């Protein structure tokens, strides 16, 4: 059971920011599927919860030229089932469809996931590998400048993600090994191929959260074939280790996931 808090349902982005500015120790909440369990475990005790999911500025999935724009309040289920995403970015749609369970997918949102930046979350890898842009209440942030270590981002206090703009790549693939207990990623790799480059982002494994594997990008940029990854290894020193997977196993899995993501462009692969 949670500690006491005040709940707010602002009518606009501006009102949300205003409530945030005036509250003692506020937190925005979207789907709440990371925050609420934490609060129920009494490990988080915000004074004020400010709901965002219903805000009009955060809605919609649209195509804008060579970009797919996804409103921050779109649930994982809505991203997974959007024909537009399935067509332009099938790996992203399938990634969304692999998050958590049915309940999580119908409550959890892309904006909430990115604001939280759980080191084992799925979306950060897609955002980073696709070089997406995080659109916020005040500015636009490129993915390369957004992620700032575990549960940390470039967001300023009170700043709200409104949308994510994904450039449409030539192709992309996502491969994931799930934690047998939580089903979060033990390690996962999103590999995106554009006209002039390959970007590889690893989630679940790094001790500093999601990261780009530049050596793999370089090798795949020269030859987009999983054979090009031979001989490349991630250092266990940079990996997370716990009872579910030690650092050496995570380094291994991240490499295998990258290989599978290359081999299976255009879709999700579960190891």
């Amino acid at each position: 059971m949670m500690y006491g808090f005040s709940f707010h349902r602002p009518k606009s982005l501006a009102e949300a920011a205003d409530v945030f500015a005036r509250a003692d120790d506020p937190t925005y909440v979207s789907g709440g599927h990371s925050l609420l369990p934490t609060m129920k475990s009494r490990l988080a005790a915000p004074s004020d919860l400010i709901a965002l999911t219903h805000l009009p500025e955060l809605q919609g999935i649209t195509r804008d030229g060579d970009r797919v724009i996804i409103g921050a309040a779109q649930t994982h289920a809505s991203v997974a089932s959007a024909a537009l995403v399935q067509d332009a970015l099938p790996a992203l749609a399938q990634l969304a469809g692999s998050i958590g369970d049915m309940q999580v997918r119908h409550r959890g949102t892309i904006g909430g996931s990115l604001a939280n930046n759980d080191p084992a979350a799925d979306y950060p890898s897609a955002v980073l590998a696709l070089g997406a842009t995080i659109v916020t209440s005040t500015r636009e942030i490129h993915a390369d400048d957004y992620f700032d270590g575990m549960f940390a981002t470039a967001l300023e206090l009170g700043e709200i993600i409104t949308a994510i703009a994904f450039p449409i790549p030539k192709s992309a693939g996502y491969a994931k090994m799930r934690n047998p207990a939580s089903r979060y990623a033990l390690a996962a790799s999103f590999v995106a191929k554009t006209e002039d480059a390959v970007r590889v982002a690893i989630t679940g494994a790094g001790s500093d959260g999601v990261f780009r594997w530049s050596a793999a990008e370089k090798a795949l940029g020269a030859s987009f074939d999983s054979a090009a990854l031979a001989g490349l290894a991630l250092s266990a020193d940079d990996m997370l280790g716990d009872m579910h997977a030690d650092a050496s196993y995570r380094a291994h899995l991240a490499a295998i996931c990258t290989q599978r993501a290359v081999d299976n462009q255009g879709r999700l692969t579960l190891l």
Partner: protein
Amino acid sequence: MTAQRQAPLPDGWAYDASTVDAGVLNAELFSEIGKPLRRREDHRLVTGKGRFSDDFSIEGQLFAAMVRSPYAHARIGAIDKAEAEALPGVVAVLTGQDALDDGLTAINHSPVPSTRFDVRLTAPDGSPPFIGPHLLLPVDKARHVGEAVAIVVAESRAAALDAAEMVDVAWEELPHVIDSLDAIKEDAPTLWDEVPGNTFVDCEHGNPEATKAAFEEAATVVRAKLHINRVTAVTMEPRAALADYDAETGRSTLYAGSGGAVRQKRELSAVLGIPQDDLRVLSYDVGGNFGARNRVYVEFGLVLWASRRLQRPVKYTASRSEAFLTDYQGRDLHTEVALALDADGKFLAMTADNVSNVGARCVSLSPLSKGAGLITGSYHIPVAHLRTRAVFTNTMCTQAYRSSGRPEVTYAIERLVDLAAIETGIDPIELRRRNLLAPQDLPYRNAVGSLYDSGEYEANMDRAMALFEWDDVGRRRADAKARGKILGVGLANYVESSIGTPKERAEITVAPDGAVEVVIGTQPSGQGHETSFGQVVADMLQIPAADVTIVLGDTDRVSVGGGSHSGRSMRHAGTVMVMASADLLRVARDLAAERLDLAPDALDYADGTFTARGTNRSVTLADLSSEQNPLSVARTNEMHAPVFPNGTAICEVEIDPVTCQIAITRYASVDDVGRCINPLIVHGQSHGGIAQGVGQAMWEDCAIDPESGQPLAGSLMDYGLPRIDTMPFFDVEISEVLSPTNPLGIKAGGEGGTTPALATVTLAVLDALRPLGVTDIAMPITPQRIWQALDTAAATPKEKAPA
């Protein structure tokens, strides 16, 4: 002691129709028994009409929260309640000292199995073991993380939880010990001053001299050191209790789901120091037990005590975190075993050194005792030498957990047999055949004294292998290889003992409208008693099962009953229901004879009706009952003889050597349950049992950090469970070799799914990984463990990966 084929039977072991007045049952008359009737309780449960403990609330109730120890081992200094008591809505903060001042005593768990068929366990000096008194709240030390040391009662749950955090306990942290093998070391921290060294049970069984001699002349000896990991039940419904005190009558009512309301009433009234009649316990629908709910929980006593003190109803509902910390846990056995074989692969002798981790105090020795009696498994092993120890550690108490003690020893013997097969070069199936007990060997007294009743062990194995399509394994192995996977198969035979609390009582009443009500003491937690018990009484009275209603779970209705554990419910309840039904028909026959003015033996009975032979004059059971004089009987029975369900299970796994991912691809089993009353229910029990055993083998683990003593798997984020997409479809069959020990010939169902599963999964994994140099792997066998095993075996898949 030496194992004995065709063992002589002790008095009272075999069912004797003449002594129980039920006569010999005519199975040809059975029309409901053996039918896969759908469970009549399910509609209620799936439409939200179940009555689980937390569903009960009483106007004006207070809420309890516990102050729990953050340390594995710490002395309790001053407890400052002031800040907590000052919080709005807080009604009371009570400590262990308050409980002592009110005269409360420790819970009497009676942990030492005591029937004459149980393996006897004593302290090292032969005296009764010191079990570590289980006060509702300790006053000296907290002995495990999560142990409750104070209770806060408040007007709301939120206030109680907030206040519990404000209770300031002056802790003095002490050195702790988590693993039982560490706890028996000389310099280990001591939990109880009464037991320096922490070992409170230490006994030897079997024949050490003959065993030693057999090992000396053996052609082959194999040895293993094994740990059967600690798991927890993860019941869907966390435990909950609501206590209500009636100041006028002085009676308390406790709404609390458990494995048996009668035991709760007996032990809790003793803790409170009140007459048993002053406590009514209601245990209706129970959302999962698996053993965890069979013993009394401190919180149940605490809400009863608080409600009597405060004269208000008090409710407690455990959170999932509290369930992970303080539900009674299961397994945690270290065993060191060895098997001696002659040149022909015949087993000669076995040794076992079993060390059970009971946790901070002893709630049950059933796992150690049950396992001790079955170390030789399904095989003829002439002599054995067994050492059994039970050890205190700074962990939550362990209790009998689904198939108490038997999966542990099945795991040990079956791993030994596979090791012996490798060592001797004899095919593992052939080696089992050479040593399995034959039907004519039974009754069989094994080398540690257990008397197996009946069974056709080799037939089980043959049938399971046929179900599994064993002959086709080679092709499947090749197919898997072509897909980049390694296939492994693991087979385990098992035999288990079902004993359980010996007493059970049935009251059968026929209402004037013909409805039959049966009051029975044992308590289900999803096993479908309302359906299957009804089938038994229906056939005994030759009436439709739909006419029979089973009443359970209210100690104002149910006075005697042992609860559901050790596969006892259908055997004990079935037996006493047979006897009570016979009593009822005897009474009814006399009444009918009087009514028809004939001699009782001039009447025929069929389909609920007595008919004067050769006439059309008849009277029904309903006719013989009236509101004033209902047709009713009560019968109490005590039955001590154990039965030995047995069977074979086979698991097939596929492992991806690159990712180390593992999947079960096939699972078959044959379970000899004796007479099967409702195959639909028994199959369901087998499926659940398999999932529970496989769960332990593959995912579940109450991991504890040895350095800090903190549990590492405190939520479903870290405690892995079997899921629908990680379970295969099961090919299970029931074998019915009737037990000679009871009128229906029942053994037990359900636990058999769990008992061999730890072994089958592990042996399948080892079969798959052996070519890569892996010879041992610990449970749970997660991808991480496979990675480590391959790494250790230096057969790492790294070269295949781009890494």
